[in-house]
């Protein structure tokens, strides 16, 4: 297990992670958090205090849309789905991240 320091997300990265997560299909909020934790090997802990506001904000912007569905355990849950606008946004965010991390790497690994 990696050391448990609060590995806070860089500003703006949460949106990109959520969009990417939803690209695989509609999920409810908890599932989104779990997916990110699982996929990053819990290297990234999603701060739940920011997750839901982020989802509502993205819904307002039209990147995701929500509907009430049924969870895997048969409970009523609010499911989020990526919209076309969200897909476009994901592409843009991915490109931005790539440029950003490449830039940071150049500095950090400079000889």
């Amino acid at each position, binding site marked *: 297990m990696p050391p448990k320091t609060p590995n806070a997300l860089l500003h703006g990265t949460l949106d990109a992670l959520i969009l990417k997560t939803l690209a695989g299909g509609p999920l409810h909020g908890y599932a989104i958090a779990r997916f990110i934790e699982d996929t990053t090997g819990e290297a990234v802990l999603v701060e739940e205090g920011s997750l839901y506001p982020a989802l509502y904000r993205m819904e*307002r912007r039209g990147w995701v849309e929500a509907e009430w569905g049924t969870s895997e355990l048969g409970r009523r849950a609010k499911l989020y789905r990526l919209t076309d606008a969200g897909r476009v946004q994901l592409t843009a965010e991915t490109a931005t991240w790539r440029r950003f991390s490449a830039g940071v790497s150049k500095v950090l690994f400079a000889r």
Partner: protein
Amino acid sequence: MKQSLRSWLWRVPIDQEVDEEIAFHVDMRTRELVERGMDVKTAREAALSRLGDRARLKRTCLDLARKRDREMRFTQWFEEVRDDVKFAARQLRGAPAFTLVAVTTLALGIGANSAIFALVDATLLRPLAFGEPERLVSIWEKTEKTPRSYVSPLNMLDWEANSRTFERIAGFTPSVGGMVMAGADGNAETVSRQWVSAAIFDVLGVKPIAGRTFLPSDDEKRGSVVVMSEAFWRTRFNSDPGVVGREIRLDGSLWTVVGIVPKDFQLIGRSSLWAMRPITNLPPRVRAAYGLQAVGRVRPGVTIEAAEADLAAVADRLAREFPQTNKGRGVMLEALHDTFIGSDLRQTSILFLGVVGFVLLTCCANVANLLLARATMRTRELAVRTALGAGRRRIIRQLVTESLVLSLIGGALGMGVGAAILSAAPSLIPQGLLPPAVTLTFDMRVVAFCFGAALVVGLLFGVAPAWQATDFSSPQVIRSDSRTTTGGGGTLRGLLVIGEVAAAVLLLFGAGLLLRTLIAVEAFDRGYRAESVLSMLVDPLGSKYPTPESLQQFYDQVESEIRAVPGVRDVAWTDTLPLDFFDEGGFSFEIAGDPPLDDSQRPRTEYQVVSPTYFSTLDLPIVAGRAFDERDKRDGVPVCIVNEAFARTFRGRSPIGQRVALRPASSPEAKPVVREVVGVARQVKGRPDETRDFVQLYVPMAQRLSDDTFLVVRPKSGRADALAPSVRAAVSRVDKEQLVSVRNIVTLEDIAWEATGRHRFRAGIVMVFAALALVLAMVGVFGVLAYTVQQRVRDFGVRRALGATTGDVLRLVVGSAARLIAAGAVIGLALAAVLARLLTAVLFGVQPLDLLTFASVTIVLALTAAVATAAPAWRAARIDPAVALRSE
């Protein structure tokens, strides 16, 4: 659309949405932790703590969700409106005849209203274009005989010096005169000029756009200085800034242009130049020269009543100090706005507003009628849409959108109509009818009015038809074999037509009364017979003619100089012109030998000073005795000539040779002047709309000189105004130093025409609107009839087939039209009987409940109704039963 549809179907209250989502999350996290081996309680606490401040989280989410829903609702609403507008546009394009008629009707209605709104705005709503106009007041001198006398410059100075409520007081001459300006090319031109006191610009808060305005030092130095209007500077001097400081030659002497003022200043008079008239260090006799219109700026927070009380106290002191001139002279204050606009014009504006409002209502009724007819034809379309799931509210919204699109197009075109009317208005409205303070402009306020009117009108005529059109149960309508239904809308349409006819009758009645008023004032007998007479005010105010002898000599010289001008038939002097009286009896009189009367009982008379040739110049007959002649000298026996109304006060005795004792009405204690009556002159009118003959007395000029007097000149033939240049030249030959001001050059016909101008204007406008309303009402009648006939083709066909005659069918159609029109006429005439009383103030020579007008309106209505009914009735009568039964 998909998203909004879902949100409507799945409406979860936002509160619940957020709560449920967070609770779900906590439950799932707890479950996960328990699976990892935590006990339930610890797991739950851990899950909750990972969420952080739950209340804040909920607030944030709620807030975002609310914004989201609001935007969604707006988007949805906007999309619906956009769809409705698109649909409406398609519908209107699909019915071009309907659209054209409706839009034209609305454009006329809204256009006429916008033009009248511009007038109302200028007269009633808009403040004067001066700085802090609410602090500006007019100050008049008030005497027993007149509530509003112009003001003496010396009194004005004393008011300013002794009052505590005024910042400044200034004055200007009420009329605009002319000055001869020597042009660069040597040709002289007449330039309009108004006299003002030095402080006028400061009082009104007018800042110059170049140079300066007048300073107190200009007044003290008695400088010859003028301020120029912006318009004159731009057109005559091509906006040359070098004009400021330059000297120009006016009436023969040099004047310095000290500054240019913006056009707003023309509110006090439509002048090109404002020349300073010095008011300090004037001789004491000027205290009796009441020639200025005074304007004061009160200190902030001072009410007009407080200012009036303050000035009244000052006036009281002046009356004690200068009893000879100021005894009985008080002050009267009113808001400057009221002075500039005048109550007559305000009444007229309100009258027009009412009239044009009825016209707009008629337009609405007509368009509503068209919409109802259309809606009846569209019944099936609407029923189908209802069956497909559109709610009634949704369909009403669609129909009202259609109305609004119509009315907005009508409003936009109406704006054009209004702009056209307003640009034509200056040439249609008689000069001098509107005071300078009233300028009719097409501005943003008119645009806003058109927009507002279009919205209101759209709702007004749109809602009822939409309600009516959607009032059905869909299954029957779809099943019915006809594409359209009859009845239903019929009642409402009938009511609308009745309303239209009533409004038209009401307006016709008002127009009739105003027309009778106009005829009455135009037909008045002026009394004098001369056809064309030139008049001008000659004002030799100056130190050149200090004695009565020198003044008399000047008048005599001018008279003989003008008499020598070719084309002049006669010339005379008078201090008042016919149709130009505004005093109500300047003198009281007693007949010598009759028992003496108390002052309050003494009869009053107008007092007119004339030269001997006055009666021959105006061709005013002397019906008894003689006219004035050489005998009536300054030191001769005091004489007078009375008019016919005066002569009647002698109660049968011959007036000739009687002696009357005359006192100025304002000083009843004065020693009377006794004059012998030498003649009786024919009655003339003091005002065109005077209600009883006014009592008048003429006094020979030699026995009572004044220093501003009208010159009247009658040509041998032709138009009198052609003589103006040569007469002016003759005056300046006598007055070589140009010390005499000659102004107000008009003919007596102009004065008579102007005196009836407002009656003509009022009658004209109301008649145009009444005619418009009548045409609209008849279009309404025609529409309803034509539609009914079309709907009942089959019915009529059956009747014909069963033996009904052409006459029977005609009677059916004409009968239904007659019922509508008769009902409208009765309501309209009843309304007219009630509302006509409101017109009393603007009527003359006709009673509000004038039978002739009632009868004429009925006849006009019957004739136009016959025209409107003829075509549909003709069509109904020609229905061929065979064809009719085969149709549909």
